[in-house]
């Protein structure tokens, strides 16, 4: 009986030692502005027609356009946390079965737009603060304004995969240049 009484305070101390009585406080909110969101023109449900360099048509469907809120910080007792938004847009084709994920993350200090190909195996980055690489460029007989040329983050030799993406705010992806010099181009 005596032993039980000795254990009781120890259990109570253990139970309360892990408690934090300070309120978790949101210290900042990093939200995406309408101007940020406008950098990715794709809307869910839309289909975009592209053409491989031999004339084969590829349909890219917008499967997802989501803005999610996440939290960073606040793990320790009393530490403030930051709420931030991240937009992910996923476009995919059936044959070949490939997809691009375009994302803008409000928590990243630089105003970047990331484009990943097939589960991050290939990655492209656009810095929205920088001026476009081309104020005007002709691609497959069509003139596009304010076009950025994004080069693949890392090079892997002897594998056919996207190497360069031409992108602007109005059309999104205009052309994907592959490492074997073939292209997949937006068809107007």
């Amino acid at each position: 009986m005596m032993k039980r009484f000795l254990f009781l305070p120890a259990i109570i101390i253990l139970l309360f030692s892990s408690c934090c009585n300070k309120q978790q406080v949101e210290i900042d909110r990093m939200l995406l502005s309408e101007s940020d969101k406008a950098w990715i023109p794709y809307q869910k449900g839309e289909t975009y027609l592209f053409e491989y360099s031999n004339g084969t048509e590829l349909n890219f469907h917008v499967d997802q356009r989501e803005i999610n809120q996440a939290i960073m910080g606040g793990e320790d007792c009393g530490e403030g946390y930051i709420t931030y938004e991240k937009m992910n847009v996923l476009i995919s084709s059936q044959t070949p079965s490939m997809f691009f994920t375009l994302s803008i993350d409000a928590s990243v200090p630089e105003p970047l737009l990331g484009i990943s190909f097939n589960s991050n195996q290939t990655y492209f980055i656009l810095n929205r603060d920088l001026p476009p690489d081309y104020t005007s460029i002709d691609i497959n007989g069509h003139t596009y304004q304010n076009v950025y040329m994004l080069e693949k983050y890392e090079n892997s030799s002897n594998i056919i995969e996207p190497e360069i993406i031409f992108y602007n705010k109005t059309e999104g992806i205009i052309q994907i240049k592959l490492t074997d010099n073939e292209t997949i181009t937006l068809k107007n």
Partner: protein
Amino acid sequence: MKQLLLKISLLLLVLFHSACSDDDDCLNIEHLDQLSATAKQWYVDPALGNRDLIDSNGITQTLVVAHSDEYIVPDAVEDDCGNIYGSFDYSVSFMPSLSAFSFNIKIHGSGISEDDFYLLMNIYYANGAEKKARYDFNTRKSHDNQAQISILNEWQVLNHTYQNVMEIKFTPTQIPSDIQKIYYAQSFGIVEYIDNSGVSYQVEY
């Protein structure tokens, strides 16, 4: 009551006898060696490297050797007759460079059971879906109803004729861009696959 005790005793006796029976205790080494040799003929040396893949629309990509592994245990099983038999696992993963899925092929052999000699073909899709087919070298057929598997004497792909080709016809699923058929040549690996829209992807020799 006596009858019940008698029945229980008989049942226990039968169970004990079946657990301790000597009938199957010796490994059939000759048969296991045959199965082992057959299974290993389907192994693909990863050093063969990446291959070009062209689809029926004329789009070219690379079939990349993404990963390979082998695991060999020389003494996986020992019988009561003094025989020791090993086990082996060879696996190779291939990933089409423009496609959001990968193939994993495992050749497995083990003396633990005759049914333990098989080729396992897994497809992992980027959306998390997965499907598989297993060919048992002992029964010479598919292990289950996820696929129909047969061995073709030869199969022609892009003007090259391959000998001994495994044709895997998957049971259709709702997975987008689902792979329906795979042709897998002995010692070479995947030579062709066809998706659910009928587009064929062929490997250049």
